[in-house]
């Protein structure tokens, strides 16, 4: 059904969201350090990087789910830090967020889940709201009979599509996806990719997609940003290792970018093994000794 490949939209130059020297720390642990980004309206950006490098933290800080320790996030020129809780709530009407595991409310039916943003922002429930819900459901390729079901009755792929329908219900200007294809089979992953492209074209929405899936990143993104864990950076290095078009990834001068894109462990395996050897003494010889002694006894 959803198989046509849709061309990527050309980015416009005015920035919808910007970060300036954004840092996030938890105690002594630095997750993000001095991240400065500008994302133009209409662009689809893929944020890639290995696990634990702060991709999801960056995504959550962009919508104020996680307050910045230092620096600022500006949405449409408006500094999120300067907004009151009420103002921020109102601003969030312009965002849509697709969570990693969909984050559907267990206690509600699918209908109530999709209608939740409408309800929160004062859209009266009625025929218009109902047709809107059904329209969004159709757009993500789900039948209307799922509306009465509970999230636990749906498969992972269906839940993600409901999550997408819920994020799209208010026609947001900025849509954020946290690992939308993780845990799905290749076919369903591609369905989600196509849906992201369709939503982008239909609603001219700016999309930021956190992903590990390079196929997905290449297919949907106009621009790829690669983050690297702060703890493993060389002194003075930026946490953003790559910022450019997906086609330029392979030609990157940085070996770490090329390795990530190709999915090569390289020296990373040796690093992991040596760090675990440093912290643990190998107990195997002592174990063998004990077993031999017990057997002798």
């Amino acid at each position: 059904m959803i198989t046509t490949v849709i061309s990527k939209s050309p980015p416009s130059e005015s920035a919808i969201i910007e970060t300036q020297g954004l840092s996030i720390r938890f105690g002594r642990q630095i997750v993000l350090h001095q991240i400065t980004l500008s994302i133009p309206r209409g662009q689809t950006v893929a944020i890639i990087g290995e696990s634990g490098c702060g991709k999801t933290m960056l995504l959550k800080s962009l919508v104020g789910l996680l307050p910045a320790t230092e620096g600022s996030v500006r949405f449409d020129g408006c500094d999120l830090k300067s907004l009151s809780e009420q103002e921020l709530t109102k601003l969030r009407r312009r965002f849509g967020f697709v969570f990693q595991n969909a984050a559907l409310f267990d206690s509600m039916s699918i209908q109530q889940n999709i209608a939740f943003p409408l309800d929160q922002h004062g859209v009266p429930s009625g025929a218009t709201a109902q047709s809107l819900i059904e329209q969004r459901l159709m757009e993500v390729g789900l039948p209307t009979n799922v509306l009465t079901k509970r999230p636990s009755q749906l498969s992972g792929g269906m839940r993600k599509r409901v999550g997408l329908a819920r994020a799209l219900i208010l026609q947001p200007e900025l849509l954020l996806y946290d690992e939308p294809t993780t845990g799905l089979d290749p076919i369903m992953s591609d369905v989600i990719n196509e849906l992201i492209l369709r939503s982008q074209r239909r609603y001219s929405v700016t999309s930021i997609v956190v992903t590990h899936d390079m196929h997905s990143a290449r297919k949907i993104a106009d621009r790829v940003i690669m983050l690297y864990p702060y703890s493993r950076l060389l002194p003075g290095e930026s946490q953003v290792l790559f910022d450019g078009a997906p086609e330029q990834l392979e030609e990157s001068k940085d070996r770490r970018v090329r390795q990530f894109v190709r999915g090569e462990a390289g020296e990373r395996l040796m690093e992991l093994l040596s760090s675990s050897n440093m912290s643990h003494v190998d107990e195997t010889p002592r174990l063998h000794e004990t077993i031999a002694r017990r057997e002798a006894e």
Partner: protein
Amino acid sequence: MGSIRKTARDSLAGRLSIGFSKVANAWGSVVIQGINTLGDISLFAWRMFLWMVSAKPRSGTLMPNFYAVGVLSLPVVALTGTFIGMVLALQSYHQFKTMGLESKLGAVITMSLVRELGPVLAATMLAGRVGSAMAAVIGTMRVTEQIDALVAMGANPIHYLVVPRFLACVLLIPALTIMADFMGIVGGYFFSVIVFGIDHAQYLKNSRDFVGGFDFFTGIFKSVFFGAIIAIVSCYRGFHCQAGAEGVGRAATSAFVESFVMILAMDIVLNMFLDGVHSTFWPTSGSKLL
């Protein structure tokens, strides 16, 4: 020889000193952590209060919580109340009989139930049945990013999740306390009059004469504070749940244990306060049992 003994004494003293500092350090950490948690809970309660007075909760969130707290807790509170009344009669009867005071049993049972056992029992059952569930539900929502989803969609999680639970606990715990009192009195009456054969009229007369309106008020008044503690501590534990199944389990356990400890501590404080109020306004009446 002497130098060996001196070294041994020194090393023993050193070990003791290290041991003592370790214990002091551990207790210090516990105290600091306890004060931090108490401060955090107070701030959490203040934020909840601000949301409660600034925005009306939706009936869609209120009614399911009223049902879970009030209707579903009623049978278990009634059942435990009945048993407590019976046990109280069983334990007190023989002791009072040796003093020839068995006819006063009605007064003792009713007084104990309406002032102490009714509200504490209702609160304990509520903390176990509803408080742990609140912590587990909110904790699961935290670890599965449902709370982040609420925020991302423009809902405030304190207003959406905590305020309805708080209102349900505070407004319905008096009804549960009255039920626990009533069933306890029924259980106590049954054991005293039917099983032990105490005179029916004497039992009721003593209950009426010795237990006053202030005693009933004391129990109901205290229960409101207990309900508030259950809701705030349980929701706080859910909000600060650690990741994984173990984190959710720990949040549910902490919610019950901490609520229970705080209920008992609050019980002492409120009893002192209410005794003070009673002796200020009715200085001559004293306790009717004496």
